[in-house]
């Protein structure tokens, strides 16, 4: 069965769910078919995927120096 075409707008709405695999198989197939044809949507997809990777960089928010020591002290002061 041929996949039903979808518009760029519909694709953008689901980009995030697509990356998280939170969409139906049918929708996934329609989106994949769309990405093959549409460079703009591919750019949006790749960029969004990059964002997810960049935000996931564990070193983005460093804890202040001595954070754990001070926390441990607080806990030691507990009854």
């Amino acid at each position, binding site marked *: 069965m041929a996949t039903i075409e979808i518009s760029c707008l519909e694709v*953008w709405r689901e980009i995030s769910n697509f990356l998280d695999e939170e969409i139906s198989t049918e929708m996934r197939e329609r989106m994949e078919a769309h990405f093959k044809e549409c460079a703009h949507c591919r750019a949006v997809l790749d*960029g969004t995927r990059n964002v997810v990777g960049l935000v996931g960089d564990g070193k983005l928010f460093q804890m202040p120096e001595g954070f754990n020591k001070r926390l441990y002290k607080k806990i030691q002061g507990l009854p």
Partner: protein
Amino acid sequence: MSMAQSQLRANEAELIKSVCDGECEAFYELVRPYERMVYATAISVVKNPADAEEVAQEAVLKAFSNLASFRAESKFSTWLLQITYNEAKMRLRKARSHLYESIDDPRPSEDADYWPKDFADWRPIPSELLEDQEMRQAIRKAIESLSPCYREVIVLRDLQNLSIKETTIILGVSEASVKTRLHRARLILRDALAPGFDGSWVKGQAYRKVRPW
């Protein structure tokens, strides 16, 4: 649940029991693996490192006093982060209580429509750039400039890698809201960071916007 996960839960249950039996020492062992998450959750709400540290400490102490009421319906880490999030929100409210402005977000848009502004093709990011301080700074700034409801959700989901389910519990919002806010947060960040990635951060290349209309 994987073997490792159920092992972790069993260990935590042991530690919780020890703490409730009066062994305070066990408490630090219980929270230590989540220090960073507690801090990141706090800073996603209060923004400033000193406040985030105080919130984190308060939250951990609260978790200690309320440990007996922890029912293993959720993971210990989820419960701890939920306390942290509420503590951070409360602090923000207190800090602003003398102001007449509304303390809550302008209502977040639950409408999924966000039109990407730029269609530049992001080349794969060179790995040496990932270690670049300037680049980290730009990402941090972009995250900080998001509206609170988007910032919180992206910090929990993409920075801390929590599941959608865990995120709904911590924020106390529906799964649909988490998905919609996450979607917007990611697309806004993508637009905000696009100029950095398609060339302008690689020496000698100027950024060219790609706008189809």
